[in-house]
């Protein structure tokens, strides 16, 4: 199996966010909100860190 770096980020963020959402909140609505929040933070944080590394290099 081959996978792109960004694909790996998306899969990791998806599965980790599902578990975080279910385990860290009590109400189903809040679980979905927290899961979405974690997913955005995972993916957004990775993209931001990538741009920082690009800026450092250039």
């Amino acid at each position, binding site marked *: *199996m*081959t*996978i792109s*770096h960004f694909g*790996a980020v998306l*899969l*990791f963020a*998806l*599965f*980790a966010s*599902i*578990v*975080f959402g*279910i*385990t860290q909140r*009590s*109400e189903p609505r809040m679980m979905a909100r927290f899961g979405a929040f974690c997913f955005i933070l995972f993916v957004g944080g990775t993209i931001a860190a990538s741009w920082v590394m690009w800026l450092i290099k250039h």
Partner: protein
Amino acid sequence: MATNVSAAARAQSSSFPTMVLIAAWLIPGAGHLMLRKWIRGGLLMASILAMFVIGLALKGKIYSPNTGDLLDILNFAGDLGNGLLYILARIFDLGTAAVQVATADYGTKFIVVAGLLNVIAAVDAHSLATGRKRS
């Protein structure tokens, strides 16, 4: 009402939360399924199982018990969180291929994180069984 009464009775039983904890560790999502949280249990099982399988498909490494490098010991502890998945992987000699591609390291991390997430899910199931977490 009857469901609440039986749930409270189960919570008072001293061995039930421990059984939930052990089942949740051995089989991802099983703890929530034992507590009749079908959707949560199914999502947890699918997520953790998928991470573990993707990790193996990416040629990730399964760590064996070791007393070497500290990071190797921690990775082994993380792998151990996968419960039966880890035991099956060791029995069938999975995750032992030499790293030949860059994404294999991602695979190793997927397997370790799947184990850590399973531990979080098992503790959550235990908290639900003892009543520490409301629902």
